[in-house]
């Protein structure tokens, strides 16, 4: 059984983000980039399933400019078997990514697609759901526990929802998007880094996959949230009421 994992190269989680002066986006030049944390969790889960013997191969996919290959190499160093890079310079929004994933899945025919629930740069939380819709596959999103049953060709997913935990049983093939508490990703050890150098990364372009990338969204403006003002000490109840009425407009 093949598992496909989609990973994204984003600004490193620990970096302090700065907005570009022209407000068209976030500063990404000269900033540390790494694999999206949720994608790491997804990849870790896929590798664990393979290590337990229930899958044969883990394929990782990433889409974007040439630098995505670095992220793929990291994924291979963690233990994936081979990588696919869809090279494009266009901005990719969730629907385009979903269409590209569908095209790849038609080629590779995996039985399970695991992805992070959202990317930390755009926080869309849409791609996994859209792919499931395009493929007409069942989906288990916000997974905090995944148990694969090979004989029954089904997977049991515990989902983190607002009210608590929901358990679903999905028939394979299925799409799973991972949440934070699913697992703790492993580190890339040196022996694995060495092995990763010989693993294959296949390149595709969107044209080869017959997908037209259309920007269906337009980013109008990116601004920082308003800075929190310092607290003010008031000296009497009257002053407090006055401030609540006239400054905060809540009374």
């Amino acid at each position, binding site marked *: 059984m093949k598992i496909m994992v989609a990973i994204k190269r984003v600004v490193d*989680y620990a970096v302090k983000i700065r907005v570009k002066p022209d407000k068209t986006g976030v500063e990404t030049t000269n900033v540390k980039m790494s694999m999206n944390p949720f994608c790491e969790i997804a990849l870790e889960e896929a590798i664990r399933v393979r290590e337990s013997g229930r899958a044969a191969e883990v394929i990782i996919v990433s889409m974007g400019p040439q630098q995505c290959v*670095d992220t793929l190499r*990291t994924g291979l160093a963690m233990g994936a078997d081979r990588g696919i890079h869809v090279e494009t310079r266009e901005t990719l929004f969730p629907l385009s990514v979903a269409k590209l994933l569908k095209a790849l899945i038609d080629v590779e025919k995996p039985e399970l697609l695991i992805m992070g629930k959202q990317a930390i740069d755009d926080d869309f939380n849409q791609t996994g759901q859209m792919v499931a819709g395009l493929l007409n596959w069942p989906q288990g999103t916000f997974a905090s526990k995944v148990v694969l049953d090979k004989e029954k060709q089904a997977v049991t997913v515990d989902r983190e929802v607002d009210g608590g935990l929901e358990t679903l049983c999905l028939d394979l093939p299925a799409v799973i998007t991972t949440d934070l508490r699913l697992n703790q990703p492993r580190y*890339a050890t040196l022996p694995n880094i060495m092995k990763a150098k010989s693993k294959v990364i296949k390149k595709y372009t969107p044209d080869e996959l017959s997908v037209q990338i259309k920007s269906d969204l337009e980013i109008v403006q990116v601004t920082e949230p308003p800075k929190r003002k310092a607290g003010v000490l008031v000296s009497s109840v009257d002053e407090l009421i006055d401030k609540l009425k006239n400054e905060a407009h809540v009374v």
Partner: protein
Amino acid sequence: MPTDKCRAIYCLLRLSSRNLFNHRSDSNFQYLYQFRGFRNHIDTTSRLLEPFLAHPKRNLRICFHPLREDMGSSLVSAKISGHTNRIHCRFFGSGSTVTKRNPVFSTINADDIAQFKEILGEKYVIQDEERLLAANTDWMRKYKGSSKLLLQPRSTEEVSQILKYCNSRCLAVVPQGGNTGLVGGSVPVFDEVIINMGSMNDIISLDKVSGVLVCEAGCILENLVSFLDNQGFIMPLDLGAKGSCQIGGNVSTNAGGLRFVRYGSLHGNVLGLEAVLANGIVLDMLGTLRKDNTGYDLKHLFIGSEGSLGIVTKISILAPPKLSSVNLAFLACKDYVSCQNLLLEAKRKLGEILSAFEFLDGNSMDLVLNHLEGVRNPLSPSTHDFYVLIETTGSDESSDKEKLEAFLLRSMEGGLISDGVLAQDMNQALSFWRIREGVPEALMKAGAVYKYDLSLPVEKMYDLVEAMRIRLGPAAEVIGYGHLGDGNLHLNISLPEYNDNVLAQIEPFVYEWTSKHRGSISAEHGLGLMKANKIHYSRSPESVHVMASIKKLLDPNGILNPYKVLPPSLAS
């Protein structure tokens, strides 16, 4: 009943300065008062001390000196029969050679307090007991003073006026920063006035072209790092205490830290400073020039003199530019020789991008994993005898990573490394650093710790750890870790409780061993109170003599941080 010995106890109790109990009100701790030489008479002693100690709820004022450690630890021990409320007191000293409070120093009176209030304002003259307790105790809770007054000046002028007054009244003072020192140099020994620099925390200027940062001495290191981060610079030093330590203290103790191997000592990075002498005179040496060969470079006297020659009030420091590509590798080596050879190789092959080279032994790793939360071994499930952290900082992400990977793979093939991981993002890097930086914290949680900070030739460094292990046997756990890149070993001996016998086995053996190999008994922590009498292990008597002369010149009344750094016998 041995009456003369009991009389001696009473004498000791009376002689010592007044002190409030260190209320470690944990009912698991025992009332441990072990008086050296009286261990055989514990029962009689306890009967004697019972009226004093029977009711802890009574506001007890039992007087104990925080005495010099080299005299051996003396905890007066008495088992209070049937009493459930127990407090653990940890003080060091011995009956015979007590560090006496120098009678030359005056004691604070109401006039003094009024004068300070006039200089600083009511709010910055603190006599509140809780705050004094915190200011009187060092980070390791090993040293405790009994100062009654804490002052918080907010400008150099205020510092100058305070010192001028204290000098005229012959009042001893202790300059205090973040109070994170590890040799008892930042807290009073007796009732010295504490001058806390924390309120002088302005960042004065940053020259973006030359990278020179000018700031006041009370700026916390981590705040400076964040400020510089926004401007594209970094601080040339980095240490585990960065969240609390202040730059004035760092400079006064010539702090080393994790980036020493790349950016060198503060003697090279501090371009200028402003200090106030004991008599209140302000020495403005706050230059921002890289090169200035005019006369004797006095600032170097203040860098590393631990507040004994003057109080540093402002600093100008060279901040290196922030480079974008930082890589961190956590490696395992099978023996110490491999660690050494790895260092040699790293200096050659990684050269200009090497920014940190740390090591810790297997015991340190176990300690950290057992006592700290949220920490996991990057190389689990296997355990190794030695771990090395290598950090590179450079300007080109891909070429640095390539260089580091090539170096690591070659070292692995050559057998220098048995296993390792490369941090793939900043979070992983932070978690690796947490392991190395967390060792002191883990030691504190594990119980009592005897800490030694030694500079030794790299080949000999671990020999001392092994010699100490053989010497102490199962009585204590000996761990070694430190800045291998600088030849700096942090030797720590961990036991559940402080123990005289063990201490006698450790000192002076460790100092003699270091001296024999021409090492330094204090690589970066300084002498403080802990090693005030030990300087002869690493410095010639002639040099110490000149040091004493300089001290006499700059501080004739000896009011700045007395009893510390130089042997007190030279003070008079």
